[in-house]
């Protein structure tokens, strides 16, 4: 477990790299199709060890755990950075918790080196019957949407095997397993569809581990999205305040108008609440206690809803320029709307939270103790 000062230093280091590499100018060049910023960032992330940030040393990672991952996702969120970070890092983290399997070592090596990204279902907490089925060891069917890159090397997905759900790690060969992107409103991430036509999984998760894998992957995806929300909401908030201090109307900066100050103060209250609930979820996950899923689900709902609200307000507080393609506001707003939909809807997350709370109460346990 890394100390707070180490994590602060890590955050500062990541922020510095991203300030140079993922500037507003480069982001706009990327969304306009002039540079492949997603790939450039991915390579740099590999060089800096970010792609193994949470993995234990025996897997070749930096061993900074969930707290280190949270810092990375927060900083990536601040810059609305493109790239398949959330899905890939959630996948390796969940896979690292499994028993050894043949591909394990090679998989982690390739991910850490930036040679392979992994696509996962976009809404891991939304359980329905898997769209893929596995028959005689081969996968059939179409699953969408996945969160992942169009050139993903692997997909980690659920599949139906008879009456049971299992999870498979699948190599995307472009023939029996194909990935196709469909443009999404958020230009900084890609949603893809997976088509399987007799693909043989690289690894089928043991029957007893499937539920654990789904749970771990859901938690990882949730926490990643939560911290992406925290970073992005904080950044769009900051740039809005700066704008309001310079924009003059009626001979005074619009930041001096009380009606606007009060709206901004309300956003600050929401930011604070988001940050605290995110830490609650992170602490619960690090402790790996009985309530980790409850807090991950509730934090996802809160952080997603708050970020979405904040991003919308920030467009409005900018006035006309906030509605233009040239400014960054819409990038933050679109990312917010995707984040809100990822993992599971806020309604579903709160239902999962209610389920967890009821379970805890029936067991005579409080979910809310804070150490003093």
């Amino acid at each position, binding site marked *: 477990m890394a100390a707070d000062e180490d994590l602060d230093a890590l955050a500062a280091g990541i922020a510095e790299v991203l300030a140079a590499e993922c500037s507003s100018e480069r982001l706009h060049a990327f969304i306009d199709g002039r540079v492949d910023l997603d790939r450039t960032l991915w390579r740099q992330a590999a060089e800096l060890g970010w792609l193994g940030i949470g993995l234990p040393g025996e897997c070749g990672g930096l061993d900074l755990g969930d707290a280190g991952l949270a810092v990375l996702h927060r900083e990536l969120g601040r810059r609305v950075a493109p790239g398949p970070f959330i899905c890939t890092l959630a996948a390796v983290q969940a896979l690292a918790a499994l028993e050894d399997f043949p591909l394990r070592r090679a998989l982690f090596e390739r991910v850490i080196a930036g040679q392979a990204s992994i696509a996962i279902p976009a809404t891991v907490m939304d359980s329905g019957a898997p769209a893929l089925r596995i028959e005689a060891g081969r996968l059939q069917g179409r699953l969408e949407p996945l969160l992942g890159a169009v050139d993903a090397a692997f997909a980690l997905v659920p599949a139906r095997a008879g009456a049971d759900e299992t999870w498979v790690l699948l190599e995307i060969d472009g023939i029996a397993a194909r990935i196709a992107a469909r443009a999404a409103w958020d230009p900084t991430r890609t949603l893809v569809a997976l088509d399987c036509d007799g693909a043989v999984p690289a690894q089928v998760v043991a029957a007893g581990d499937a539920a654990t894998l789904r749970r771990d992957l859901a938690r990882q995806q949730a926490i990643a999205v939560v911290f992406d929300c925290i970073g992005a909401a904080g950044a769009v908030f900051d740039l809005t305040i700066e704008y309001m201090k310079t924009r003059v109307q009626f001979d005074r900066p619009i930041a001096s108008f009380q009606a606007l100050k009060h709206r*901004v103060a309300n956003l*600050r209250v929401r930011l*604070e609440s988001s940050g*605290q*609930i995110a830490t609650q979820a992170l602490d619960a996950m690090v402790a790996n206690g009985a309530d980790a899923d409850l807090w991950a689900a509730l934090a996802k709902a809160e952080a997603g809803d708050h970020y979405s609200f904040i991003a919308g307000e920030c467009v409005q507080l900018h006035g006309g320029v906030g509605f233009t393609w040239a400014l960054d506001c819409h990038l933050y707003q679109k990312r917010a709307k995707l984040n809100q939909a990822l993992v599971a809807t806020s309604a579903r997350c709160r239902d999962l939270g209610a389920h967890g709370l009821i379970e805890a109460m029936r067991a005579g346990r409080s979910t809310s103790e804070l150490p003093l």
Partner: protein
Amino acid sequence: MSDILELRDDLPAFRAALRAWLTANAPPAAEFERIVRADPTDYEAFQRRWMSALAGIGMATPHWPVEYGGAGLSLRHQMVVVDEMARIGARSPASSIFMIALHHVPGTLFAWGTPEQKARYLPGISRGEDVWCQGFSEPGAGSDLASLRTRAERDGDHYVVNGQKVWSSHSRYARYCILLARTDPKVKKHAGISYFLLDMRLPGVEVRPLKQATGRSEFSEIFLTDVRIPVQERVGEEGQGWQVAQSTLAAERGVLFYENAEHLRYRLEAVMRDALASDAAWLRDDQLRREFMALFAEQQALRRLGHRMLLADEATSGKHDITPALVKITMTELEQRAADLFVRAGGIDKQYLEPDGTNPLFDYIDSFGGTIAAGSNEIMRNIIAERGLGMPR
């Protein structure tokens, strides 16, 4: 020193001893619930009994320094006290008629009081006897407190005070009052104010309870007619009252809000437990259940923020930023939303003035006291925007 306080160096043992004492001696949670709606005589008697029970084990002013009759407990210990009371549904005396005496008066006198003032006024509080009130707000001076017009004119070794104060909580029970009055109307408004300790039994002091929207009379108007306050009851220099008042107002935050947050935690847990036991309809209503879970998440976020504020306070001795304003807004609005949710979830059965079980409509109406009092949430928003975010005035 009491048995409990002797265990102060061992926090878990301190907690356990306190829990045992509270279990044996604190009035039941239902009494604390009922008494806030009881008539003033019963209410006062209850609060005084509870306060003297705590004073009996040295826990009337445990947060005060030892030299002033306290136990010098750290903030961490105070948080344990708050938590243990909240756990069983008990309220601390600071949340009732003793609030000003326990927090605002010491917050002011420790920093500004003369040795004589401290010796005269603090022991009565640590014995659990004296109730104090605050004479700050006026009909024309609410959020704009510095525009207050109550006059204090020097006449030899006295000040002669005339004016009217309002929204003074618990002043009908109070022995003393911390009072702001204008001693110099010619200088700028902040510079002409002085701070006094007023004996409520002096001639010319008249307290008229105000009936609130809840039907209760928690606060009163205070009319001051030619009240003669001795010069030695002035705190700080003449004209320094605004500065002195900042110490008073700073004492309002912190532990008090933390207590409210802890109560909200146990209330939400109790509501859920009751809903499960009674198979409440709202739990099967998607919208109401999800609203509850959002509140549940936000109260935990608030508690974490409160922890951070108090524990950081302990480390940096009171230098914090806009956190108290964030806590105040979040706390009071969560209480309001929770009460509103419970009213709606309760349906027509909770529309009775005295419904069976809980009384969420009382809490809801009363919750506007929280969002308005102690610096309205709008003033808090100004503080966040101007001091926290540097937005120009």
